[in-house]
């Protein structure tokens, strides 16, 4: 192996190690468990920081539900016994509504919550 090629491979390896260290050094995204049940969410008020992505871990206690936050183009169907995970990128400040978009019963239309994005 030529010295030039050894140097090239060494640089690649160093870059790869650097990248791996970089990934390991990034803080893990915050996971927010959200439980859906007739006819609310727990929590029904979610506070997140601007530009700090979070993972919403969605479960349902009783019947199939939906989670829809159109302002962030995030939606999921939540099946009882399963966990749905969606990534939410809070790219604007303010208070935004999310709601159930799978018609689930008498109180379906009141089943919603808020996402507050703070600076």
């Amino acid at each position, binding site marked *: 192996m030529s010295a030039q090629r050894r140097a090239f491979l060494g640089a690649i390896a160093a870059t790869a190690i650097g990248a791996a260290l970089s990934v390991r050094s990034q803080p893990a995204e915050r996971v927010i468990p959200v439980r859906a049940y007739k006819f609310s969410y727990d929590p029904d008020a979610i506070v997140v920081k601007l530009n700090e992505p979070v993972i919403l871990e969605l479960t349902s206690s009783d019947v199939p539900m939906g989670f*829809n936050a*159109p302002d962030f183009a995030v939606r999921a169907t939540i099946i009882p016994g399963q966990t749905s995970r969606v990534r939410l990128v809070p790219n604007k400040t303010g208070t935004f509504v999310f709601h159930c*978009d799978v*018609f689930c019963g008498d109180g379906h239309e009141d089943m919603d919550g808020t996402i507050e994005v703070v600076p």
Partner: protein
Amino acid sequence: MKTIDRREFLTLAGLGGVVLVGGACFGRAAAAADADADEFYFVQLSDPHWGFEGPAQNPDATGTLQKAIAAVNALKEPPDFIVFTGDLTHTTEDGKVRRKRMDEVRAIIGELKVKDVRFMPGEHDASLDHGKAFGEFFGRTHYTFDHKGVHFITLDNVSDPTAAIGGDQLAWLAADIERQSADARIVVFTHRPLFDLYPQWDWATADGAKAIEILQRRENVTVFYGHIHQEHHHVTGHIEHHAARGLMFALPAPGSQLKRTPVAWDPAQPYKGLGFREVEAEARPVKYGITELPVVPA
């Protein structure tokens, strides 16, 4: 001498708000007699929500629909037909109660003098049992019919609890549209808006864009819908979409507040925000004159 047509009379008499859509000219006084042969009007009622209880929104929950029926029966000229664009009943998880409400509302609607009445479900009627009870009382949830040169299509975007029309019905729609001439006069009745009016409040159809893409293949398509309990007009491409007021409680303007809380009853202005509409279909040019009427005449 200039004669005035029915809609002009309504306007001059101040009986209701009039919206002219789909054409540039007003009135048809000079229209030829043969053109009149294809002109008619129908009445759209929507969202009576029979079974709803909420005195703060409507203390006359068990009497409002009957007042609207009486108002329709009192129209000087009877409409050719009447259409209910969904949410005949308020939702309940009890199948027996659901059927009782449907039986009751069907009996009240049976008091209409005009017997050609068309139905479609809203999500309150159909989303919890995929339209089963609705079908038992009111028949099919999507279908077509023709009347005096207009092809009517009723689309079901509520029997699927995810607010989708679904692939089968979209294929059925595409096949039906394919059979219509390029300039066919087409009117679509549906419950939810086909476009994304305000998805934050669930005012949308999950696959409504696919339906609109199919409907865009024809020149003269107009959509009348309910669901949002207020008059609203919107255009996508060359298709006009007109939402009707409800008959139980009013809802706020899209996005006007954080949540979709119903509008409170105003004792100083009872039945404010509730009503029904007449739609006058004209053939040449193709247009629809909409007259909004109150539940209780002023």
